[in-house]
Each structure stands twice: as structure tokens, then as C-alpha cells.
């Protein structure tokens, strides 16, 4: 129940962000922050350890049949558009698996690699994932099912665009195009 509050906060921020009078990349200071999780081979991963690139952050899970491939696919297409403009090294993808029961850090990393983007796949203990999701206003919830997939995971579809100081600068919605995403990244990278 408490996570629904976070969804509403996130939705409210999304609504504000779409206002014509507000800069599209105005810092969203009520969300976000540095965090530590586990990367491939159990190595600690700190979001803020590498600030050389902007970050596209996404919360998902690797058994996700639709929403996650769609989101990371849009991120991938955006990075290709940026590469065509000579901006191939300005952004990374950080994919946080919120399904630590099924996703090892290696599986999370392979999921990112499949999209051909520069990025890392990480996961961690459930309490850590809940704390981090809360900080970003993201939602996830395990849902029992009689599907052969076993349980399902409801989760936010937002991509978070972070600047070099890890400040959230844009909540990217599922209907935002790769062209729009590339445009925001380009503006932030060249400002």
C-alpha cells in the first residue's frame, strides 16, 4: 500500500513535468539519489562511482515479456540516434532488476547487453531494492499467478534520465519516443 503513495507522487511529478511553462529538464530534486547494489560476478556497483556519462535508469525484471523490452528498446534506439550525431559516449543505461529471486546480476547484465547499449545490469537484496525504488518514486510488486511463468511483477515503466550529479532531470514515460529521449539527452549532454 505504501508504494501506491510513491506511484501517486511520481504521477504528480510527471504531470508537473508536462506543463508548458516548466523547463523539460528542470531538476526533480524530490526523487533520486546515489545507491549501491550488486553487479556481475557479485561486484559492488555504486551508481555514483562513474559520473562520466548521463544515466538512463530503469526498474524492471528479466522475465518481463513486454514492458521492459519496450523501454530498453526505446533507450537503445535513442542511443543509436545519438551516435549518429556523434554523441555515442554520453549516456549509459543502468537496469535495476527488482526480481532478485530469478535474476542474478549476470542475468541482469545479459539483459542489458542484448540491447546493444553501454550499460550495467544490477540487482540486490529486496529491502535495498524497495528502498531505492522508494527514493525514485518507482513501484514494483510481486503478483502470484497460475501462469507457467510463475509469479509476475507489476512495475513502473518510467525511464529516469539523470545528470552527472545523479539529479533526476526527466521522467521518461512509456509513450515518449526515442527521438524525444535522444533530444533530452543531447540537450543535457551539450548544455
Amino acid at each position, binding site marked *: 500500500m505504501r508504494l501506491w503513495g510513491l506511484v501517486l507522487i511520481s*504521477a504528480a511529478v510527471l504531470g508537473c513535468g508536462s506543463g508548458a511553462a516548466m523547463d523539460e529538464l528542470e531538476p526533480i530534486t524530490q526523487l533520486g539519489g546515489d545507491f549501491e547494489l550488486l553487479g556481475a560476478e557479485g561486484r559492488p556497483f555504486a551508481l555514483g562511482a562513474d559520473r562520466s556519462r548521463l544515466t538512463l535508469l530503469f526498474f524492471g525484471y528479466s522475465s518481463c515479456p513486454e*514492458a521492459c*523490452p519496450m523501454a530498453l528498446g526505446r533507450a537503445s534506439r535513442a542511443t543509436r540516434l545519438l551516435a549518429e550525431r556523434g554523441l555515442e559516449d554520453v549516456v549509459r543505461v543502468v537496469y535495476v532488476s527488482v526480481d532478485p529471486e530469478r535474476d542474478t546480476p549476470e*542475468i541482469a547484465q*545479459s539483459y542489458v547487453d542484448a540491447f546493444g547499449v553501454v550499460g550495467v545490469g544490477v540487482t540486490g537484496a529486496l529491502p535495498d531494492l524497495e528502498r531505492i525504488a522508494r527514493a525514485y518514486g518507482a513501484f514494483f510488486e510481486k503478483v502470484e*499467478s*497460475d*501462469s507457467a*511463468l510463475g509469479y509476475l511483477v507489476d512495475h*513502473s515503466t518510467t525511464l529516469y534520465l539523470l545528470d552527472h550529479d545523479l539529479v533526476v532531470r526527466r521522467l521518461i514515460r512509456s509513450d515518449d519516443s526515442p527521438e524525444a529521449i535522444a533530444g533530452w539527452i543531447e540537450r543535457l549532454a551539450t548544455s
Partner: protein
Amino acid sequence: MSRFWMARTFWLAAALVVLVTSPLVASASEGVSEGAVLEVSNPRVRTPMPGRAMTAGFAELHNPGPAEVVIVGGHCTCSKVVELHVMAEEDGVMRMRKVDQFAVPAAGTLELRPGGPHLMLIGLEGQPLEPGGEVVIELELAGGASQVVTFAVESWKS
């Protein structure tokens, strides 16, 4: 809005997605088999993502008849299970659920599509799915009938 009402709204929306009637004019006989009940357009499945043993199937299903057609399941030699799933995004949260049936309304169309109702092929087995290939899925209809549809295989990146 309470979680109860949000959940009710979600499932009402999901039901409308599945039951909605579209005035789509039936396209040519692509994908239609002899004696078919449904006219099927653009049937396609994706190759699975690397390391995954599942994928999704999509198509436009047009029912030209005067009575609703209900799909209650499916079978494919390419997977252990074919399930019927619905998806809906609400307040930035994507939810997917397995359902027992898809209803294709009389003189209407149900679109199986990414982000909406779709077939889930779980436990892929046999020959790997390759772009340009085909898989045959038997749609199980209420009342005991079935309809065989050939789905084109396309890349998961498409």
C-alpha cells in the same frame, strides 16, 4: 483513489480492451484456414530474447459472424504452453495477467498487440525460432472447435 478502486478500474479497463468492438473492415484472407471462424491478419511471433525460453504472439482477429467467438487457449509444438495474457498500463505501472479467455465480438475485431492482449508462448522447445520462419498455433475455441493459424517469426528487436 484507494487501491481497491484502482484495481477495479484496472480490471475494468483490461476487460474493455479485450471486449472492445472495432469497425475494422476485414482485410484479405491472410492467415485464414479452411473453415476458419476468425479472419486473421498479420499473425506474428517474436524470436525470444537471448537466453529466454518464452515469447509473445500478436495478430488482428476479425470475427465476421453474427455471434461472439471466444478463444479459451492455444497449442503450439514450439512451446510447452500457450497462455492468454492481458496487459495494461495505469499511472505509469504495467500490469500483466493471465486470463482464461479472449472474446472476439460479433462483426468485430480483437487486436493482439504489444502492450495489450497477446499470446504467451512459454517453455520454447524444438527448433529455435528464426526471423523469416513460421510457427503454427492452434487456437482453441469455446465449444470445442479450434482454428489453426500460421504465425510469421520476426526479430524481437523489430
